[in-house]
């Protein structure tokens, strides 16, 4: 006997049918820009390993109009990833302290503090 499970037809444009679905898709697509920026970073490491002039060429490309526009778009999506990722943390890893649940706002807040600290350390390390 063959199984014939019912498969409901899903339109490819399903995510355009409700604002919540659209914001979900934008949230998931942040990963495309995070991924593309990782490709850029990997290229940077390869150029760094190739010596002084290769690195200087890479830095010059970062500052080209194309480099700046691409990275500006990446920055918007990366920040959106941070905000949405932190917003999910109380649901993804709820904490209990002495049998009481830690309020979500405290977990989210701790992540924002960590974000500020990491950003400050990197900026100071980079010579700000």
């Amino acid at each position, binding site marked *: 006997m063959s199984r014939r499970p019912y498969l409901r037809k899903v339109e490819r444009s399903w995510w355009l049918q409700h604002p919540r679905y659209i914001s979900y898709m934008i949230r*998931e697509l942040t990963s495309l820009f995070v991924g593309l920026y990782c490709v850029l970073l990997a290229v940077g490491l390869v150029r760094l390993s190739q010596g002084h002039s290769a690195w200087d060429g890479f830095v010059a490309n970062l500052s080209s109009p194309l480099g700046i526009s691409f990275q500006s778009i990446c920055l918007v999506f990366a920040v959106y990833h941070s905000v949405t990722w932190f917003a999910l943390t109380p649901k993804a890893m709820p904490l209990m302290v002495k049998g009481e649940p830690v309020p979500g706002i405290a977990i989210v807040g701790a992540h924002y503090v960590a974000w500020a600290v990491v950003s400050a350390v990197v900026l100071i390390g980079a010579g700000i």
Partner: protein
Amino acid sequence: MARSNKPILWLPFAGGGLVAALITPVLILITGILVPLGVLHLSYETLAAFAHHPIGKLILFGAVALPAWHAAHRLRMTAHDLGLGGGIAVKAACYGTAGLVILASAVALIAI
């Protein structure tokens, strides 16, 4: 209990999501805004010295490899959501690109 390879995919996915959330925006701010504006200067000597130190290598590798893996896994799931299926082509494109990024970073960092 049934064994699953899901945790192997999931742990770096979640770790990568956190690393991407904490460090990626400030890196883009530096390479994409502050360096082009001339506020910061990423000199070869400073960066090479940082990448030469074992801890520097580890930090740089983590900052590239973990978000890359996170992005690959999430894009594969999003491709499925968009009706592109869970086929081998999508898997190869996502994990293949991430694998290349991770490998190239590791090789470059070892060479520095």
